[in-house]
Structures are given as structure tokens and as C-alpha cells.
């Protein structure tokens, strides 16, 4: 890396916009925009710069496995004749996907080395994807690496979790809140489950890994629902997240049922673009040099001119050069506390006070459209689910405030990955955009639909209920906000989502003023790279 190592990476920044502030870069789906913000009442939150990566990731992993927290070293928990299950995060992490080798590959290879040393030969590798789509062979190969893939996949011991296989799932009990706990039978019957995490945001990891990742609809419905989501403030802040409380309760049941989990959590820095031509996207605008400007203009023009499919191919082909920043291993909860601190170290930006209008430029990717299309429901989920919830303390926008998100929001869908989304868009959204109402009226039908189940199990489709979860993800924001405006969005689609379309920033602010009053304060949450606002 050519970045000058004498300097420590700079922390995040809250910039007050004045007349001299240059137009600011904004993602607009698969396109890029430069946007001038009103002076004297706008501020821009910039993410911290990428942390220095660990010099020797493989060694760091070995060390973490050798000296875990709250647990004996992994080697001590492995023995010949045991049933070992290695579960790992699926294709939804990290975003965009990581250049080879993926952190999970490093971890899994180390675990397998230890297992081999201990003479363990009953090892299963499971992509813990819960109700996500099955990963393709190429994706599995990318995550675990060629060596592991070729040793396990042909023997059928490297596979995708199947939450709808009645033979392969087991219910282990119920929490004191009446939540059922369901898990992969293989995991339940294993002597040890090693869970390999990649904690991209603070929501990831902890008991959510096993209690959600290896579970199914029967258990997930207890926390993936509007009531839980509105009480998770935010779901990125584990101690104030009802979603996590519920997962933790289920984890407790897992533990008392005798499921032994050895948790390995890893964090990466937010180096999405490296030093290549894309590096301009991570730079602060006033620091752009001539080359940056030229490469920005060129990328913007190229993206605007490419057909949608071509744009998608280019963008989804990008692999980020993340650097590993920490590895924690051992007991689930202890590990997770350390990991969350590491995530915060990279992502947390202190922000004072809330704003009237919160502005997002939504990028081309979300956890659920890797190598796919960001459909309108995912736009909702990314904006009001993920970005809105990237706060600690209190939301960036005041209650009754407005979110403006910039995204084309075209009614485009991937029929292979998101078949139930298409029907959700055509059947459910015209009827209601209220999470509670749709949960009552439609969720069960979609969740138990035979065709969706078939596509989830045999194809590469998200589970039938998944679009509902995506909608619930925004439940807290929907309750909190006074209105949502989609800047540059397809008007009919935006209206179907229950939002208001605007073609220019001025129009969007005008619409927002109708809701929050004249001359509102504006905060632009310049994400990605990912960050989290610590709002006081």
C-alpha cells in the first residue's frame, strides 16, 4: 500500500456546509452524482479513514484460536471421532465482496488445520444463510477458497443451510418469552460448532450468528417482525436492540440445550476502493486533485452511458481490498463485546444533535443483492433499514423529520433471486405499506408458499417471507419519520412504496419543508464507506 504510514488514519468528520464547500459526491444506485447542499444549514458526516490492517492476518487468526477469550484454545476442544461443524457467514457479507482470500477462508483453513491435527474427520461446512438465497458454487468457492472447496464440496460436506428441510432442522426449546428455538440438526448434534463471522456492521455476530444464521422461519418470526423491529433502537446497537435481546434469549436456550459454540469474529477496515481508479469515491471532495476529478468525471460519464445490465456487471464485479483489523475467538458473548468495540473503532463518528432532514445517497449494493438487482423493496431496506439505523444513542433525524434518499428506484427485479419480491411488489404493496397490516394479512401465505419454498431449497431464491423482513427492517424508521422523499426515483414505484418522488434536490427539499417547516437543517450521511453515527 502506498498510503503514507507515518500518519494515523483520520477519524470521521462532521463538516458544516458553507458557500465555499464544493458539491458533494452522492451515490445514486449504480450512478454517481455531485450535489450542492444549501449553505449554513447543512452538514456532511464523513466516515473515518480505513484503519491500518493487521500485517499478517493468518498469524493473527492462529493466535486468536490459540488464545481465545472465555474458552479453552480451539485445539483443546477438538478430538478424534468428534462431530465438528463449521458454519460461516454467507454471501451477504461483506459488501462489496472481498478480494481473495476472503477472511473466512483464512479462518476456516486454520480451523481445519487444527482439526486435522486433532484427527477430526467428521467435518461439515455450512453456509449459515438462514432464509437468504443459496450461494452458488462459485460464491462458496470464493468464500472458502479453492483448497477447502475441492476437499469438501464433492463429498457433500460443504453445503448451504436449508431451513425448510424438515429432516435437517430441529426445535430445541422455547425461551422464557415463548420464542421457539430452531437450528440445523447437524449443528445441534455436533460436539462443537465453530462459527466463522465477518462482522461488517455492529449488528452482525454474537448469538445472532447461530440463532438466526442456522435457524428457520419458525424461530425467526419471533424477532423478525414489526413489533420487535420498532423496539430495536437501533438494531445496530445491540444493547438497545430488541432484535438482539431476542436472539440472545434464543442463544441461551441453545447453550442450555448443550450446543457448544466456538465463536470466531473478525473485523475489516472500510477500505472499499484501494488505490485504484475508484479511490476518489472515498476521498473528501475538497481534497480531490486533478486526477481525482478526471477519474470521477470519467466514471460518472461511463456509468451514465452504460446500459443498466452493463453497469451492474462492472459494479458487481468489484472486489474490495479490505484489510483485516481484528480477530476474536472463544465464548460468544465475550467475543462479541470485543468485536463490537473493533467495529466502533473503525466506524463510529460522534455527531451532536439531530437534524430535520436526513440525506442518503444509496449505492448499488445491499446485503441482499450481491450479483443481483437492487429492487425497490431493497431500496427501502437499505435506506430505512440499514442507513437509518446506523446510529447509537438517538436517530440522526428528529422524530417527525424527513429522510431524502437518492436512488433511481426502478421496478426492476431479479426473477431468480427475488421471485417472492416481485409478487410482494405487485400484490402486497398496492394494498398496504404498513408493516403490521401486511404481517397480519400476507406474511403467513408467503412464508408457507410451496413454490417459494421450492425455489429457496432448490434454486437461488430468497425465502418467500424475505421481502416482508426487508420491509419490517424499516419499521422503526417508518414510525419515527414524518415523510420519505426519493430523489430521482421512478415516480410510480416510489409512490407504491408510500414515499414521495422528487426529481431535483430543490424539489426534494421543498417537499421536505412542507413536512418539517421552512429552512430545515440538513444532514448528509455520506455512506459508503460504512460508518455509524454516535448521536448525542
Amino acid at each position, binding site marked *: 500500500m502506498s498510503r503514507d504510514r507515518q500518519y494515523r488514519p483520520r477519524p470521521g468528520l462532521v463538516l458544516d456546509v458553507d458557500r465555499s464547500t464544493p458539491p458533494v459526491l452522492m451515490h445514486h444506485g449504480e450512478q454517481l452524482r455531485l450535489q450542492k447542499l444549501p449553505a449554513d444549514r447543512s452538514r456532511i458526516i464523513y466516515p473515518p479513514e480505513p484503519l491500518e490492517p493487521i500485517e*499478517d492476518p493468518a498469524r493473527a487468526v492462529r493466535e486468536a484460536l490459540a488464545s481465545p477469550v472465555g474458552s479453552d484454545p480451539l485445539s483443546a476442544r477438538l478430538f478424534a471421532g468428534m462431530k465438528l461443524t463449521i458454519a460461516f457467514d454467507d454471501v451477504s457479507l461483506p459488501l462489496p465482496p472481498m478480494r481473495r482470500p476472503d477472511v473466512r477462508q483464512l479462518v476456516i483453513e486454520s480451523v481445519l488445520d487444527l482439526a486435522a491435527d486433532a484427527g477430526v474427520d467428521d467435518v461439515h461446512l455450512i453456509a449459515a444463510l438462514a432464509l437468504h438465497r443459496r450461494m452458488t458454487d*462459485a460464491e462458496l468457492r470464493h468464500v472458502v477458497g479453492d483448497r477447502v472447496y475441492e476437499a469438501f464440496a464433492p463429498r457433500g460436506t460443504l453445503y448451504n443451510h436449508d431451513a425448510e428441510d424438515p429432516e435437517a432442522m430441529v426445535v430445541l426449546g422455547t425461551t422464557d418469552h415463548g420464542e421457539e428455538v430452531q437450528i440445523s440438526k447437524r449443528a445441534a448434534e455436533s460436539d462443537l460448532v465453530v462459527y466463522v463471522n465477518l462482522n461488517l456492521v455492529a449488528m452482525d455476530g454474537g448469538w445472532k450468528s447461530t440463532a438466526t444464521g442456522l435457524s428457520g422461519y419458525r424461530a425467526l418470526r419471533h424477532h423478525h417482525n414489526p413489533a420487535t423491529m420498532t423496539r430495536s433502537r437501533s438494531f445496530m446497537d445491540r444493547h438497545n436492540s430488541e432484535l438482539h435481546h431476542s436472539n440472545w434469549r434464543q442463544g441461551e436456550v441453545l447453550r442450555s440445550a448443550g450446543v457448544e459454540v466456538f465463536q470466531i469474529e473478525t473485523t475489516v477496515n472500510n477500505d472499499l476502493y484501494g488505490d485504484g481508479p475508484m479511490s476518489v469515491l472515498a476521498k473528501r471532495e475538497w481534497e480531490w486533485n486533478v486526477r481525482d476529478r478526471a477519474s470521477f468525471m470519467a466514471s460518472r460519464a461511463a456509468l451514465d452511458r452504460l446500459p*443498466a445490465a452493463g453497469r451492474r456487471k462492472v459494479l458487481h464485479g468489484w*472486489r474490495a481490498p479490505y484489510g483485516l483489523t481484528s480477530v476474536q475467538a472463544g465464548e460468544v458473548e465475550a467475543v462479541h463485546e470485543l468485536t463490537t468495540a473493533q467495529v466502533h473503532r473503525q466506524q463510529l463518528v460522534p455527531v451532536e444533535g439531530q437534524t430535520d432532514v436526513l440525506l442518503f445517497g444509496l449505492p448499488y449494493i445491499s446485503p441482499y443483492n450481491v450479483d443481483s438487482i437492487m429492487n425497490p423493496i431493497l431500496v427501502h431496506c437499505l435506506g430505512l433499514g440499514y442507513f437509518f439505523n446506523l446510529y447509537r444513542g438517538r436517530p440522526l433525524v428528529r422524530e417527525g423529520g424527513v429522510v431524502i434518499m437518492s436512488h433511481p428506484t426502478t421496478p*426492476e427485479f*431479479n426473477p431468480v433471486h427475488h421471485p417472492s419480491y*416481485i409478487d410482494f411488489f*405487485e400484490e402486497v404493496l398496492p394494498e398496504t405499506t404498513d408493516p403490521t397490516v401486511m404481517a397480519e394479512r400476507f406474511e403467513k401465505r408467503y412464508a408457507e408458499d410451496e413454490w417459494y419454498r*421450492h425455489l429457496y431449497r432448490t434454486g437461488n431464491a430468497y425465502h418467500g417471507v424475505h421481502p416482508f423482513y426487508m420491509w419490517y427492517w424499516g419499521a422503526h424508521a417508518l414510525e419515527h419519520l414524518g415523510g420519505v422523499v426519493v430523489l430521482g426515483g421512478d415516480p410510480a414505484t416510489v409512490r407504491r412504496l408510500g414515499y414521495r418522488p422528487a426529481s431535483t434536490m430543490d424539489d426534494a427539499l421543498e417537499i421536505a419543508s412542507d413536512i418539517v417547516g421552512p429552512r430545515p437543517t440538513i444532514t448528509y450521511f455520506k455512506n459508503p464507506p460504512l460508518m455509524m453515527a454516535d448521536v448525542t
Partner: protein
Amino acid sequence: MIADALSAKRIFITGATGFVGTALTERILRCVPESTVVLLVRDGRRRDARSRVEREVLRNDAFDRLRDELGKDGFADMAQRRVEVVAGDVGTDRLGLDAAGLQALSTCDVVIHSAATVAFDAPLDRAVEVNLLGPVRIARTIDEAFGTHGRPVPHLVTVSTCYVAGNRRGAAPEEPVRSNPFFVDIDWQAEVAAARRTRADTDAASRHPDRLAEFAKTARSVLGPAGGPALSERTEQLRRDWVADSLVSAGRSRAASLGWPDAYALTKALGEVALGETLDGIRAEGRRTPTLSVVRPSIIESALAEPSPGWIRGFRMAEPIILSYARGLLKEFPGVPEGIVDVIPVDLVVSAILAAAANPSSSEAPDIVQVASGGINPLQYQVLVDNVRDWFLEHPLHDDHGQPIVVPDWTFPGRGRVERQLRVATGGLERVERIVGNLPLRGRAARWGAQLELRRAAAQRALSYVELYGAYTECEAVYGVDRLLELADLEARGADGVEGSPGPMQLDPRAIEWDDYIPRIHLPSVVKHGRAATTGAKRDPERRANRLRGQVLSEQRHLAAFDLENTLIASNVVSTYAWLAGRRLGTADRARLVARLLAEAPGLLAADRSDRSDFLRSFYRRYEGAPVEQIRADAADAMSDLLLSRSFPDALRRVREHRRLGHRTVLITGALDLVVEPLAPLFDDIVCAEATTEVRNGVEVLTGHLSGAPPTAEARAAVLRELCERHGLDPAESVAYADSSSDLSLLEAVGFPVAVNPEPRLATIARTRGWLIEEFDTARGHRPPLLPLAPRWGRPRQRRRPLDRTAP
């Protein structure tokens, strides 16, 4: 006075369901007290004569006035008392009357024969049977009914046409056809025989093997590979149409050769001659004959005042032309600006008929009354055109988009030029349409093809109007109306000889004020009857589609059958094969496979079009030797990569909606069973091509043969019927979705057919039959690769990544 003279009489009327007949019946019932009408009406296919009269005559809005006067019950009473119906047909001997019918006729005082085939383009033999022989049969039947008893022979009034005078310039007085100096003396009996022979000859010619082959070829080009029964049906239909068309042109050329504008005028003229000769013959045999009046109207149009201004029945000659003009379809129409269009309102014709009936001639010579305006109150073509143009400029019709249509300026070109222009246009459009019809178009493109067809049909219609009616706008005969004026005078003066208002019995053409009649009375009526869009309200085709959709998705339906290719997915057996065959090949082999298939594509397409069953059988040979397990595993992957990614999400949702409504869902496809297996959860039954297998070297492989006939064309209808029978379901309550005319038998077998992304031929059929048409599209934004190739199998090629920081 007419009413007095006819009161309490029994009046026998033929042609009561026609335009003049309805007005005549109404006038008699309303204005001639205590009279009785005896209506000769054919038994319909579904209704007997009496109920036809109820529905087709008495319910017509002509009777609204009388109904209002008498009240609903009073009207019914009156009809019961004064309207008698006898079943019969002027096209058969003795008018097809039974004894009771003859009895009813024998008590009548007046017989009015107004039945005619007024279509100008009737087949020759049909025109001869009705127009020529009709009056002869009337005369003979009257002779039979009255010959034996002593009652006075009735007065016979026949309705003919001014155009019996033929194509001539100058005066055409009210004289018998034979007295016409331009009449070519021909033997009407020979014409009858010739017409009947022409029918027999034409029919024989239509059955010649070459011609039958031609019909079959045309049927195939219209329907595509629709299967044997559908093709035979269409072939036979084409043969019958060909016979009818040939007889139409035979009629037209025969008429032209003798100096008449068309077969209608010719047969009417010969009818008058034949009637005269028949009566002479009866007289020569010493029997009594009726006194005869012949009423010859010119072009009859909507009513001036009676029963209501503008009343009209059916579509007459001028209306389609006027509407085509107003819709902008007819840009030119031949004619001479100063020429005279001889138009006469129907109520004047009715009055003239009744006046003739009330004033029988005292001699044996027929009393001839011409009802025409040209001689005394001429309407110049220019005036008519100006009036029409002005009116439509003020009251424009609107197109489908709700936009007003601006009517074109008429330049009065010669007939030859207009016909030539239209022929060129029609021919050109036909050629383009044929080409488009052969292109593998779908959905929107096919709809564009259907538009082309609409345009062609419009041009063709315009051409037929010009061919049919052009002669009339160029006819420069002036019809004498001396006798008519005499009758008008009589009626106006009344019994007491004092001149008064003619009342409802107006029969003087001078009463028409053209500048008032055309814009105020006639055109509004034409527009109303033409159901033309007169407001800018956009017609919403979605409303109709939604209604049909509601019927399709009703709980009452039993079963929903789906085709696969282009109905549920945008793919075909060749793509599937390419995907499966290329799945485990290296790059070079894949390229070869693709190149080979592309080279074969035109041949495959042609084979598919000529016989789908044969095509499938021969194509599936390519699977010979393929290991079953491998194909099955790959087919599961093909489900995502090939089927689902090219699927129409709306179509899949529709299948599921049917399931949810409790309908039995069926997939009927020529695709291979192994390939469609992953679709099983959508359907209760899958009927497809079943591959046979054998064990070679210990491995189960496909033989490349099918275990039975693949369900294609008419076999699909059979499959559907069999399924319905097996499960106790009703095909009439079932739905079928398909995209191509080769599925016609399937679509026709159910009560609720749906054309999905129809190819042009099916689009045409679906539109004319009013079927629901669905445009299902692949998911927006998702572009499956152009070539149906599987993702690379096995280990991906390693690319060197300079930024990889660590090696495993």
C-alpha cells in the same frame, strides 16, 4: 285518403324484418285504423317466426312512438290483435307456406312484397332466388290461394328500385322495364337457370384438388401449425367463402355486361319482367290475377319525420361510407361534384307504398310509382359532401386516444384512380402483413403487426365501398316521379278535395330540405347508429381486460391449462438443449455447439412451423446417450439459470392465483419431462414429452425416443378434455393460456381462452373473438444472457490479482 282506403283491411307483408318492412308495419299499425297485418317471416335458427317478429320488429325503436301512445300493455294487446305471423320464405316455392299460412294469405286484401336481398354484393344465385324469383313466387302463391274460391283477388304491391332503369343518362320515366329503350331483351328463365348452373359449376370448381390444396395452404398460413381438425375446418370455410366470392363477382360482371350497376339492380329488373310475364301467363289460363303496383324507391335513407326524424334500421349504403370518411379511413371517394345523389327518406317510401296500395290501378297494366328526389328536388354530390364535411368538422369523431379526427378534403377524383390507389395500398399492406406474419414476433411487436392488419382491413373495406357503390355516385339517370306527385296530390287534397297538410302520409320529395335533413336529421342518426366515439373520453381497453380477467380468476372456474414456451417462460426446447448440452463442455466445444445450432436455426424454425410433433421427435434424438442422472442434476440448475431467469413473473403468479382459487392447474408442453420436472410444485398435472431410457454400460441413458406422441396442436385439446373427464371438471368452465395459433385447439376447447404474448396470427384471432390478451414480460431490469449457455462448469479460471496481499 290512404288511411281511410286501407282501414279495416288485412295486409300481407313480406320482408317485415327489413328496413322498409319495419317502417311499413309500424305506419300501418299506427295510422291505418282497424287494419290487420299478416307478416311472412322465416323461422330463425333459434327462434320461430312469431318470436322473431316480437324481437326483431316490434321491439325496434320504430315502435317507441306507438308504445308511448298505447302504453306497454296497450301495445301488447294491439300487437296481439292486429299482428298475425305466418312462417315462410320467399326463397322457396309456395313461399314455404303451410295450409294455415295459405289460408291466412287467402283472406288478405293487399299483399305488399318488400322482401329483397338488398346487399349489393349478394352472390348471383342468391339475388336471383330472392329478387328475381320472389315476385314470381308471390304471384303463383296468390294464384293458388285465391284461384279456387270466390274472394276478390288482392291488390299486389311490390317494392322494386329505381335502378332497374340501368346505367343510363337522362330521363328514366315510370314505365315497365320492357318499355325501357335500353333494355337488352333477355330471357329471365334462362338467367335463372344460368345462375343456378353457375353455383353448381363454381362449387365443383372449388373442389378441384389444386384449389383445395390452395385453400389448405392459406389455412395453414393463417392458423400456423394448429393441428388437423382446426385446419380442415378453416379450409372448408375458405372453400365456401371462395364459392360465395366467385358468385358475387359473377353477379357483378353479368350485371355490368347487361348495363346494370350491380346484381341487385339486374335481378330486381328481371324480377319485374318475370312478374309481368307470370301474371300474363295466369291470365292466359283464364284465372283472375291481382292488380299490380310497383313502387321503385331510389337510395333509401333515414326517416324525415316518421316514426321519428332520423329513424333508421341496419346499416345502409351511405352510412358506412360516411363513417369511414369521418374516421379518416376513406380519404377519397369517386364521383362528379355536380352529379346527383338520389336519396329518399324511408318514410316517404312507406307513404308511397301505402298510397299505391290505396289506389289500385283500374287496368291490367301495372301502376308504377318511382320514389326519388333527383328529378324534382335534386341533391348534388357537392352539397352532400360539403354538408357532411362541415358537420364532422363541427362534431368530429374521436380516435382511440380520445383525439378528434379531422376529416379529409374530398377532391372528387375519377373512380378508376381511387380504385387504383386503394388497390395499391391494400396490396402493399397485404404483402407487409404477410411478411410480418411470418416473422417470429411476440407481444408488443405482434400487436404492432395486428395494427397493420387493422389498417389493411380498413383499406380493403374502403376499396370494397368504392367498388360497390362507386357506380351509384356516377349514375346520371333522372327518375321521373309523375305518378308519385299525382298520388301526393291526391293525398294532400284529401277526400273532400280541399288541400291540407299531408300529415303522416307525406310522400312529396319536395318536402325535403337537404341543408336541414343532412346535418340535423341524417348525420346525427348515422353517428348514433354507428356507435362512433363522439366525445374525447378515452376508451379504456384495460376495463374490458379487467372484466375478462375477473371472469378468468373467478372461483367458479375448474381448471387452468398453461402452455410453457412463451406463455410462462421466454425460452424453447432448442435453448434448453443448448444449455444442457453446453453445460459440461470446454470453451472451444461450446463455441462449436453454439455455431452449429445457430447455423441450423432457420431449418429448425421451419421444421417447427410445419409440424411441431415431428420437429420435437427429431430434435429430441439429439439427447440420445445422455446420462439421465447428469441431465436431471443439470436440469435442476437450468431451473434457476434458464427457466426462472427467462420466466414471466406475472405468468407464474397467475398460475399460483389459479391454484389458490382452487382450480386444477395443468402444464401442457412439448418440453422434455426431465427439464420441466422442477416446475412440478406449480401444477397438479404436467403433460409433456416423455423420454425413454435404457441402460448402456451400466449407466441409465436417454434413448432419444419418446414414449408417446408429444402433446402438440389438437392433441392438447384432447389432453385437456381427458383431464377434465378424469377429474369431473367442465372444459366450458376452464381457462387456457397459450401464445401461438398452434394452440388454437386448446384455446377453443375451453370456455375462457387467454392469449399470452400472442404471435400475430393468434393476436388477430384473439382480438376478433374478444379473448383476453395478456402481455407477460420477463422481469424488468434482468437481462438473461443472449445465448442460452450454462455458467462454466467446474473450477473457475484463476485471474492474477496484483492486490492480493496474502497467499493461502
